């Protein structure tokens, strides 16, 4: 601490020592190398369309390679971020080891073809995530949260085990790809047990209502571990349904049920979020909703759209977690989210808003082909139109802005964004081992569209906020598990 100038130092502070462990540095390099390698494999795959396999054990197809790229990217971000974020923490080395191990296991999971291997890796993935939730070993609440999560993950693994055993029993196939060819013969009660168990396992993994408890109690994990959980781990529900698509899509009624549970979480997650006050709790509820939407897409047969959604949502949610510390604002009581319905808009404004929304949908349609035919693909376009419409409506209402900005901003920003989304969607769909099962437009699709319009109007008018009972129910449903809450800060003593 001396040597800056010649003057004597009075009561100098101690020189601190630098981190000594090389594990974090080495693993960070390694995971980014794996990312680079995955990109290379993806390029080869796109060029040649190969499927490489160790017969009976591992099969590397488009979905595998895509998920390798995604998983190593998120893991690389978490590694690089944590090298600075966890500086000086005694958790650092165990944290890096666990995150890296988790990464390798997930990469194995998306490549696994043998049913037993798949099941074992699924369980290992859950146990490592539970370990991350409780990585602060001396903190009782963190251990309680890890226990909660572990129970859920063991339940989901058990369900998966039941499903895989039943499928093997029914078809004699020992691999996932073997099931695909044998799925035509599936049916009856054994199939129902298998398919039902698969869906439940996916619901637990993706923290769908009513299995969201573990996710909302998981904030004892270090922030980057939460980012990895919300951007990676919960997605495995979607991967599971996509991998076993031939099994679950045997019966449209089951697919309808998947749409139902997904849609319920999509709505419920948003409602739960609306009453939350802590930032990570809000993000957790938001994930419940996003995963519900993703599972709903899968239930509609759009497996490509579901995978696209989980990747893009991962970017969004990882970003939100890693920046969670910056979201404290100094506000006044008058601010808040206004209910926008009832605000007057001129006719011109209304027309321009409508046109902007439709144009957004048109961009998506032209690039993806969705919506050119009257089939269930229209529903995907519907959400694009709706989002653009809402954004345009908001922009137009800002009368303090110059007209060019009010009317121009949304097309200028949104249309390129839609182009990118459409490109990602097309690219991802091209890599899918299962083709999207677009079906004819049915009453169901109409009901979903009407339902979301209803929800939209409900939230914008705030009509549901008249019920105290609903408020209390939502607040209670969004509470973390009781023994994971630090009501006596004295208990937090391990650092």
């Amino acid at each position, binding site marked *: 601490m001396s040597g800056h100038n010649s003057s004597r130092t009075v*009561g100098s502070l101690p020189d601190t020592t630098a981190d000594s462990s090389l594990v974090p540095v080495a693993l960070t390099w390694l995971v980014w190398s794996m990312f680079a390698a995955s990109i290379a494999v993806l390029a080869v795959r796109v060029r040649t369309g190969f499927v490489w396999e160790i017969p009976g054990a591992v099969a590397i197809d488009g979905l595998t390679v895509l998920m390798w790229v995604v998983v190593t990217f998120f893991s690389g971000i978490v590694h690089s971020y944590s090298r600075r974020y966890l500086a000086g923490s005694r958790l650092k080395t165990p944290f890096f080891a666990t995150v890296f191990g988790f990464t390798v296991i997930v990469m194995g999971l998306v490549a696994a073809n043998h049913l037993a291997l798949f099941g074992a890796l699924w369980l290992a993935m859950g146990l490592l995530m539970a370990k991350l939730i409780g990585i602060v070993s001396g903190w009782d609440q963190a251990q309680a949260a890890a226990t909660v999560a572990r129970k859920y993950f063991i339940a989901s693994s058990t369900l998966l085990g039941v499903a895989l055993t039943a499928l093997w029993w029914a078809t004699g196939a020992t691999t996932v790809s073997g099931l695909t060819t044998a799925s035509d013969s599936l049916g009856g009660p054994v199939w129902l047990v298998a398919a039902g168990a698969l869906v439940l396992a996916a619901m637990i993994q993706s923290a769908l209502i009513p299995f969201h408890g573990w996710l909302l109690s998981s904030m004892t994990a270090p922030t980057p571990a939460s980012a990895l959980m919300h951007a990676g781990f919960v997605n495995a529900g979607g991967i599971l349904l996509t991998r076993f698509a031939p099994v679950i899509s045997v019966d449209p009624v089951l697919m309808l049920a998947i749409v139902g549970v997904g849609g319920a979480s999509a709505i419920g997650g948003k409602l739960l979020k609306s*009453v939350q006050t802590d930032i990570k709790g809000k993000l957790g509820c938001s994930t419940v909703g996003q995963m519900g939407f993703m599972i709903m897409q899968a239930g509609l047969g759009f497996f490509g759209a579901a995978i696209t959604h989980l990747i893009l949502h991962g970017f969004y949610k990882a970003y939100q977690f890693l920046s969670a510390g910056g979201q404290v604002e100094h506000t006044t009581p008058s601010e808040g989210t206004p209910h926008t319905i009832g605000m007057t808009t001129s006719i011109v404004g209304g027309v321009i808003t409508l046109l902007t929304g439709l144009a957004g949908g048109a961009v998506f349609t032209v690039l993806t082909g969705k919506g050119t035919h009257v089939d269930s693909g229209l529903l995907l376009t519907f959400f694009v139109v709706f*989002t653009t419409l809402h954004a345009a409506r908001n922009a137009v209402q800002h009368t303090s802005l110059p007209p060019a900005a009010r009317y121009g901003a949304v097309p200028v920003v949104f249309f390129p964004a839609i182009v990118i989304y459409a490109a990602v969607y097309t690219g991802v769909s091209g890599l899918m081992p299962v083709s999207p099962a677009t079906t004819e437009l049915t009453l169901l699709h109409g009901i979903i569209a009407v339902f979301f319009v209803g929800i939209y109007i409900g939230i914008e008018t705030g009509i549901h906020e008249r019920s105290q009972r609903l408020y209390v129910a939502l607040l209670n449903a969004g509470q973390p598990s009781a023994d994971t809450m630090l009501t006596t800060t004295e208990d937090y003593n391990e650092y």
Partner: protein
Amino acid sequence: MSTESAIHDSIDTAATTVGSLWPIHSFVTANPLAGFENQPFGEAVTQAADLLGGRGYPSAETFRAALERGQIDPEILDAELSEAGYEDDPEILLDHMANTADATDSDSDTATDRVDQVLTKWLSAFLDEGSAHWSMPNREAGFYTAFRGVAEHDGDIPDEGIITDLPETPSETIETVLAPHPESQWVPIFEEQLAALPGWTGLIKQRADDEGAWQSAYPISLAGYLAARLALLDAVDAAIAPSNTSIDPDPTAELAGAFLRAWEASYRGDLVETVSVESQSLADSDTSGRPDAQMVFCIDTRSEIIRRHIEATGDYETHGYAGFFGVPMEYQGYDTDVSVDACPPILDPQHHVTDVPTDDDTRESHDRLSGIRETADEIIETLEANAATAYGFVETAGSGYGLALAARTLVPGRVQELLDVADDSVPDEHEFCEPLVHHQHTYTGDLPVGLTTDEKVEYAATAFDLMGWETFSRLVVFTGHASETTNNPYDSSLDCGACAGNPGGPNARVLAAICNDTEVRSALRDRGFEIPEDTVFLAGEHNTTTDEVELYDSDVPESHTDDLEQLRADLATARENAAAERAESMRSDASSGVNETERRAADWAETRPEWGLAGNAGFVIGPRELTSGVDLDGRAFLHSYDWSADPDGEALEAILTGPMVVTQWINTQYYFSTVDNAVYGSGSKVTHNPVGNVGVYQGNGGDLMTGLPLQSLMAADDDPYHQPLRLSTVIHAPVDCVNDVLADHAELTDLLDNNWLSLTVVDPTQDHRAFEYEHDLEWSPASELSETDLADPTAPAVSDD
């Protein structure tokens, strides 16, 4: 006395033990044990340990590390230990201390745990400041009434006891639940219940005392909270009789106290010796002449570093003054709805000052660009909030987030440069706004807008009086300070403590505007301050994270352009050197100090953007010359003071009752946050979860964390960077003058007699000898200062390693 008023009196009495907790957006570094300051330090920490469960002294490992690093002088330690009756070797005593470390496991009672969970749920809902989209129903009726409304729907609350039919007022509820208990038990019952969730109750207490905008919109009182709590305890049938277990004092407290005193004395001895020696040479030299510029900084410990480096670049004089520059104001920036108290929490604001635009063109371009940014934020918020659009939004915007994710993590420095460019295109508010200083004959709330001429003269004269100024340079800069950090809920804890956790730039601008006022100047001349015609006052802001000093130069006349250019160049040099010193203290490469500090300011993955006031241990009140020859390593608060210009002791009185009290608050906050980071601090940032724009949880929720985070104090989990020492104040003035001030202020002698801080006086009229305050206004000559030390100014430092 009616029962109701007896209840309220008991609550008021019990509430003194609750440490106030300020909302996280305006973090105030206060003593978490402020309510115990009327007791001796040792007894206070024992009582607090009993009530809150926190440690009162550093751990054996911390002492051992300090001993090994030579920060505790072995001779002083031996003296302290034998005085306390310990004859063993310090190492053995430390082993003993470590072995008897209290293994107090909190005996968690499931019934009260359940009550705590219900209460934290409703408190977080009620006290939320705009975080939830759908806030708790009926909040405007107040906490108790709103709670009464939702309790019937809450399945977590058992349908037992008084909660099934809550009386209309809190008093009735409290009275009913307390009926079986004699009045003598009320205060202890309340104390225990208020200590159950000290974070939330501290916030309630502060909010009720402060009467801010949120409190007037949604009122809450400790009585309302206690009524809800007692009703819930009644419902789960938990016993509320105060526990009779006598306080079981920490067996090692006395030993730890001796180690602590020795450590403090080691640091103090070194500091006092320096001041004594320099006091001698100051008296021998004659300091006159007009420096190129005078710069006034906050007394904050971080100012010491930049001041040292500025002084090294040229003929500059730097001074220390409270960072709110003596102007107790409420400040409202341009284009914000929020007013902040820009003065220390021991004062109430007396003026409302707003920023008003003076340059319409720049303002328009600012408004246009910031309007677009705000609209974009708002659109994203509404898209995220609606279930029908949130999913589509995530899909269209996801790729952008992916890009930002990679950029901010992998190349934080580059991102910062990009943001800077974008930021520069939007004019800063200080480029087109000026604080409205003139009295407007209107009121905002209870406060007059602006200042009258008399008030202006008073503030300017007070500043020069307190700092003991006689000469004025061509340039005089008042430099406030602010931090610059990213992704940090505790950013306001790094801002100016004298401005209640707000940036100090606005106050500096107000005082500069006052001093440039011709009317004020002529009045000042009448009061004996000969300010030359060519003296120009300007304001600036010191960025404590990057050590950049920004000058607000819009009013500087052309005649001073050259002076300003030179100052700017020297500030840049000083910044480079200061940043290198900082980078080194953060274990980074000192050769790229500026880049490194800028990276830390902008990096979202950085949990230690700067060290803040960590390390603070001393407070020197006297001329800068006493310390300008040494490197204080950013550990000392410095207040300029010239005893010879203060014959009646008024300035000294103002410094002791103002800045000294505030520095003691800051010092004790750092002390307790370090010795028990779980109970008095807020734990590791790694698992923080901000809640309701008011506080921070650890993990899933529960009680609010209260003090500073671990990363603000510790270099590593087990390696404290902050040295937990009580403040050593050193005053350069005659002992009698100091004694006169203390005699008039019982609140100061209380603090001193109870050992919350120490006071040493270096008396320039008594041969520059040092005297230590003992107790009851008695002094003893400082023991470390032998005649040989005084005769030999180059004597090695006692605890220098």
